[in-house]
């Protein structure tokens, strides 16, 4: 890789446009063979959840997403990479997170996107609190034990 991978990181309360991000990744390029794009959504947990409150550590969130992205770009031959993570109140059906990876090679794009999501979940300083439909504050979401298992794959 002679040129560094273009990396876009954004931490924002506003929603994002995944298609516009992918369009920007591939704009004017003819060396990209594939883009893998993951969008994470807020679920309603069987109708019990009114919203998630996403708390983050300003500054560190951007730094960690950048660090994880630079790591991914060093491990796979990526031609572009976007990570966007929202904070604030997010309702069921809304978008929470976007990871998009472009590469000449399909497998690299899949692996890098998968890796980014695994590391983001356990390293980026975000925390989810549940607000229930019945008006009560739900619990803070617990880190899943599968997150650690996911990490051990890399």
């Amino acid at each position, binding site marked *: 890789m002679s040129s560094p991978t273009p990396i876009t990181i954004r931490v924002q309360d506003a929603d994002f446009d995944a298609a516009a991000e992918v369009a920007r990744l591939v704009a004017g390029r003819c060396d990209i063979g594939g883009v893998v794009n993951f969008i*994470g959504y807020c679920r309603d947990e069987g109708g019990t959840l009114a919203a998630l409150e996403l*708390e983050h*550590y300003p500054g560190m969130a951007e730094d960690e997403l950048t660090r994880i992205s630079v790591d991914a770009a060093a491990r796979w031959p990526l031609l572009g990479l976007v990570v966007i993570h929202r904070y604030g109140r997010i309702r069921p059906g809304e978008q929470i997170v976007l990871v998009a990876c472009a590469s000449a090679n399909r497998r690299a794009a899949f692996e890098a996107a998968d890796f980014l999501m695994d590391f983001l979940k*356990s*390293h980026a300083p*975000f925390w989810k609190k549940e607000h229930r439909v019945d008006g009560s504050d739900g619990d803070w979401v617990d*880190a899943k034990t599968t997150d650690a298992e996911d990490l051990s794959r890399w």
Partner: protein
Amino acid sequence: MKVVYFAWLRERIQRPEEEIAFPSSVTTVREALTFLSGLGENYAYAFEKPEIIRAALDKKHVKPETLIAGAREIAFFPPMTGG
């Protein structure tokens, strides 16, 4: 030193951040946590399971044995649940 808390740690301690003058005997992240947990019931409750608490020094993940000298900001928080 500026100390910041997130998620249920912030809720239990009932403040997002504060200025703490650690005594000179507190040299590591673990010692800082132990010191804070002695500041009152709300702190004791927040840090009741120290083994699950994560920490950052100047916005970088650190281990319990990391030295805090020179840092401007120390953060304590539960395991992260983004994504």
